[in-house]
């Protein structure tokens, strides 16, 4: 199905809580059902003030999948949706049903039908699609939001999905939570620790600085060698840059620098040794549990010699 972009009538703001909820739902479904890519469906709630829509929260929905012909027909359990929505509204009085979400990366035909069935809850609900297996180098969130528009095709009113843009908005606690998750959960890469996440950006920043200095140096060398004509403005900038740097080549500085460097190395060494010893003792404990028969050891009263 071709996707068209909407006219931009609505300003949509998405909260990170919704994204986390959907991811969590998907992970649980995957663990519980042993399928690789189960489809999960849920509802989104939020507020709408004129043209700006904020999606604050989401919850899961009970649905049934039936095969009719080639496609899967999905019917949502509306009673459950009602009940859950009312419970939320009791707590958050401002929230309304905003739309529904599902996982996947393409729009299927039957999504329209589901969308139509939800029209009784909201005249123009939104449809959010999360791709649980995005490509690794994708830099944005793998989320697409679609609005629906009633168009007349072949003299029949038909709903069409229109792709719309959105922005993320977070409250202070949400921002802190997301920050914490990125720090502690990290990637599956064990080498990332708090120190490396702190030091890595520094490292890349310093590398960038160094690359630029190399370019400037090359330029200056070529000007000195007469290969390029020097531009006075640029040369003046270089001169002022060089003046800003403190004089760093004294022997005293080198000594101090070396001694601080050695101290840091020493601390790293100590840390590495401590971590290593800890790991060794864990391995020994596990080995003990797996291979030593504790009860049999107590029966030895006399030693037995090995004859060589």
């Amino acid at each position, binding site marked *: 199905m071709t996707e068209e972009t909407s006219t931009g009538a609505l300003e949509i703001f998405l909260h990170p809580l919704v994204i986390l909820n959907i991811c969590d739902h998907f992970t649980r479904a995957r663990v519980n059902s042993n399928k690789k890519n189960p489809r999960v469906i849920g509802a989104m709630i939020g507020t709408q003030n004129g043209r700006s829509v904020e999606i604050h929260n989401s919850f899961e929905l009970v649905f049934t999948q039936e095969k009719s012909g080639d496609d899967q027909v999905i019917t949502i359990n509306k009673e459950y949706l009602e009940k859950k929505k009312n419970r939320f509204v009791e707590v958050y009085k401002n929230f309304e049903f905003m739309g529904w979400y599902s996982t996947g990366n393409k729009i299927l035909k039957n999504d329209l039908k589901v969308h139509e069935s939800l029209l009784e809850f909201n005249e123009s609900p939104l449809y959010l699609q999360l791709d649980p297996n995005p490509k690794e180098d994708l830099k944005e969130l793998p989320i697409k939001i679609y609005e629906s528009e009633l168009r007349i095709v072949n003299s029949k009113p038909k709903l069409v999905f229109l792709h719309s843009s959105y922005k993320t908005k977070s409250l202070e606690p949400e921002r802190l939570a997301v920050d914490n998750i990125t720090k502690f959960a990290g990637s599956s890469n064990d080498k990332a620790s708090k120190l490396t996440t702190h030091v890595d950006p520094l490292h890349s920043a310093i590398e960038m600085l160094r690359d630029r200095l190399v370019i400037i140096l090359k330029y200056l060398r070529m000007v000195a060698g007469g290969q390029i004509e020097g531009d006075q403005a640029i040369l003046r900038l270089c001169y002022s840059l060089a003046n800003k740097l403190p004089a760093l080549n004294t022997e005293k500085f080198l*000594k101090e620098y*070396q*001694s601080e*460097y*050695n101290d840091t*190395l*020493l601390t*790293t*060494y100590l840390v*590495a*040794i401590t*971590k*290593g010893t800890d*790991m*060794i003792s*864990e*391995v*020994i404990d*596990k*080995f*003990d*549990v*797996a*291979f*030593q028969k504790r009860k*049999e*050891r107590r029966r*030895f009263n006399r*030693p*037995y*010699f*090995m004859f*060589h």
Partner: protein
Amino acid sequence: MEQVLNIIFQNSNNKESLQHLFEFLKKKEKIINEQKNNLDLYLEQLHNGHHTLGCLFLLAAKAQAKSIQNVVLIIKQLQQFFLNCDPYQARFCPSKYYFLCKRLAEICIENSVPQAAILPLYQSIQKLQKTSELTPAHPYLMLVSLCSKNFSVATKVLEEEVFEIESKRTGLNIEEVLLYFYYGGLIWAILKQYDRATHFFELNISFPANILSRIVLESYKKFIFTSILSTGKVPVLPSQTSHVVEKNLRQFCGPYLKFKQFFENSNSLELNELVVKFNDVFEKDNNLGLAKLCIQNLLKRGIQRLTKTYITLSLEFVAEKFGLGSVINAEFYILDMIEKGEVFAKIDQKKGEISFHDDPETYQSSKVGIRMDKDIQEVIDLSNQIKHLDERIMVYPNYIMKKMKEDYHSQKKSEEISEKKMN
């Protein structure tokens, strides 16, 4: 027998047919073994490099004989074999290969030419060893080096850390492992690298064991001495030492434990008396030399302890405290220590005083930085190896079963305890 030779000639060139050759030779082993006297003739026809597998079987048959007539010939044959053999072929029958190593070592030692075996054994290790693996040839190389007092090759091998043991493929047994570390520890002690010697003996003591082994006992005795010589005290046995070893130490190492105690109390008179009293025991175990070295060490440790309390000290005091006799003796002794770098001090002869300094090394040079970088990298590599070991053991089904049982038991116990408390 001619048939055997022909088949060896035919099949040794092709890599696929080597497996067939191996099985054929195994079947014909009896025939080969019966040929005792004629083996030399046949060996001359075969080439060590191309027909390694065939040579292996023939040489093994020859080496099985308890008494060897022409010693020089067999030593030469074995040397040539290890020099030229093809590792790919030899891998088919590692047990015979290492049997040859063992026999070479034994023959050379019996005939008082241990140095003849050093180089061939070293080559044999290099050819068949996977990285950082312990082979049965290691302990024999160490033994031969000890007998010939020639340690250059042995230290090269000892410096490579050994991480892997695959007993199925190499036919390694526990005796050989213990012997390797025992002999290795002896070699390090002779070379006065006492910390490495202590490490090797400690490994021997802490091997998981159900039965006490004489090698472990001897290792413990030497462990006491070498740890005193390297750090001045005997550390507590590591927690993974098996109970069997701990329980039986008192029974069999009584004099040594007393030595340890007296050393810790730094009582040199009593220590001397003890050594005299148990002279026979120490001498029988060949530890008398180490014991005497330890007594000398006691004096050194005493003076080093003085640096912690005093800044200046009179020579008379030192002579009195340590029973060194005259002031001149004390001065001589301390001068010796200063030269060796064991203590940092200045002697003022006019006043008859010593003043102690701090260590002038500040560890702030770039050399230290480079060295630490290298050390950190080594530690990280080692940690990665341990992590692999950890992961391997975690998924081992035996471990998971036992762990579940233990958790179940401990849960039950805690429930019982809480029930008792409630009632």
